[in-house]
């Protein structure tokens, strides 16, 4: 069994985000990138499948600042092969990212056949779609999204996937492999890997580089950002002070005054 996990780096919103002088993009000089949270869950799900079924696990990422750290961390956690796609400048729209992934997967590099292709169901910088269904479409594979658990049958030809719905409803689906799954959350939280193990992986593992196909950028589907700006605070919270009785009276007064009672 071969599991392929696709990783994407996204802006780290813990650090301040700056808008570039064009006013249409984030300032890349200032930006720190971090592994997309749901991709981290996809990696964890891949590791769980490896442990459960003895699968081979390949991780493929698009080149971006700090991606090497993410790939060596994946290797330290147990990925058998780590790769990145070079030769195209980030940032990518989601459609561009999906096309790059699909072309590199299909263009040899020994990636296929893969029984399961896992990636995060959504990233914070997705503007024009989701990577997983777009990759599935490009590769002509079935797709299921918002997945929170996977089990593969003994033959390795079908998988059962748990999918989340609103209001706590869950559905279980059978899907023929190979397939692409968008992971909402792994069955367990992403594991911790000691820094010493990551350092050891940096010495013992090599990140394989796959060049983006020359035609990768042809006919990029475009999403034009017209303007990017910070939210402007429109007002401030009013702190109610006094005894509990005074605060509750005041609160009731405000709610009644706004017609909410």
């Amino acid at each position, binding site marked *: 069994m071969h599991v392929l996990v696709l990783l994407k780096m996204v802006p780290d919103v813990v650090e*301040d985000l700056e808008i570039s002088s064009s006013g249409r993009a984030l300032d890349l000089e200032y930006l720190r990138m971090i592994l997309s949270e749901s991709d981290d869950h996809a990696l964890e799900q891949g590791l769980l499948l490896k442990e459960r079924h003895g699968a081979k696990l390949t991780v493929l990422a698009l080149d971006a600042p700090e991606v090497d750290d993410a790939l060596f961390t994946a290797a330290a956690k147990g990925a058998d092969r780590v790769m990145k796609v070079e030769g195209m400048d980030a940032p990518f729209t989601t459609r561009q990212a999906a096309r790059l992934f699909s072309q590199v997967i299909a263009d040899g590099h020994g990636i296929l056949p893969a029984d399961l292709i896992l990636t995060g169901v959504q990233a914070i910088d997705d503007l024009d779609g989701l990577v997983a269904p777009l990759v599935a479409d490009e590769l002509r594979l079935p797709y299921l999204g918002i997945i929170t658990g996977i089990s593969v049958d003994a033959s390795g030809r079908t998988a059962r996937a748990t999918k989340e719905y609103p209001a706590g409803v869950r559905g279980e689906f059978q899907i023929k492999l190979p397939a692409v799954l968008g992971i909402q959350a792994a069955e367990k939280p992403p594991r*911790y890997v000691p*820094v010493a193990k990551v350092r050891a992986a940096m010495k013992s593992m090599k990140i394989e580089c796959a060049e983006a196909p020359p035609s990768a950028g042809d006919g990029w589907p475009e999403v034009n950002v017209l303007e990017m700006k910070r939210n402007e605070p429109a007002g401030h919270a009013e702190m109610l002070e006094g005894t509990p009785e005074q605060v509750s009276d005041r609160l009731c007064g405000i709610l009644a005054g706004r017609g909410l009672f």
Partner: protein
Amino acid sequence: MSTCPVTLETLPQIPEGREILTCLQCGVCAGTCPYGDVMEYPPRRMIAMMRAGMLEKVFTSDSLLACVACYACMAKCPRGIRLTEILLPLMKEQALAHLPELPGELQRALQNTLRYGNPMGEPSRKRAAWVKTAGVPIRIFAEDRKPADTLWFVECYTSYYPRGQDNSRATARLFHRLGIDYAILGNEEKCAGECGRLTWEPGLFETLMDYNMAVFQKYQFNRVVTSCPHAHNAFKNRYPVLGFNWALEHVTPFLARYLDRLKPLLTRKLPYKVTYHDSCCLGRQNEFYEAPRLLLKAIPGVKLVEMVHNRVNAICCGGGGGGMWLDTYFKAKGYGRLSERRVKEAVATGADVLAVSCPYEVSRFEDALKVLGCDKRMIVRDVTELLAEAMEE
């Protein structure tokens, strides 16, 4: 790192390791351990398991999660075995590799410390944001590179946590009034990493140590003064292998050295009955028992009273060795919170102020006071905050 690392396998080959094997199995360590009653393998049994070659059973239990690195076992051992410094970090490292799952809070703290240089996951670029609120000028080395006598290593909780920032503002005012020639690293500073080492993660500790040493070497200063006893511990005991050879002090004993110059500045009477909590790192590990008490007694109006457990017998706040990020885990396990146990003792003295010298303790004790419903009877203040309060502007 160039030094040959000690492992559990090579431990018996070094003097400290051979010392562990001389354990009498008297059980004083287990009796003094604040969580000895809930550990499947308290310190005495850990050593017995080591002798029997059965340490793996210890790694895979959750006993090591309950070690809050309080140095009590080490301080009380009649053989002088330095458990907290030698054996426990090596065991915890193995536990990290063997435990099927790390408690989420601790995992996040470790990941945040690696990525952002602080366990809270606050932006690394805002580490020095508190400086604007200090009310006195504070020199940041990156902005003014001229040599300073003192490098003040502020540390994490004192940079980000709002009540920790009160400590930093107070320290800055004291340094300013005392005319200390100092600078800080600002956003270049990252956690010294002591809790990385004592919290399972030597690789994280080495990464932080390499980083901080490289930053230190960019600037000229004679001494390092830090607000955090954990950073003091790391600089004193671990950083020297990378060439850390500057004079080193924690803020509290540093200020005590300036007591003659400080006393005339303490003109405001504070009518407080104060009890002092000895931090494990400052107290049991470094025997700084008198400096904070001298400072508190120098404040006009302060009456100092002692808790039943004080100095070497002080009860840990529960924050060391990763305990700072294991409260939820301890709660789920049904363990009592050490900070609540300590605060009950403090309240029993009749004091209205619990004075501390470690940034971890402010949040832990303020929280414990609220949980116990005692937050109207007692407040928590760092010694520096009380000194600054006693200074007339």
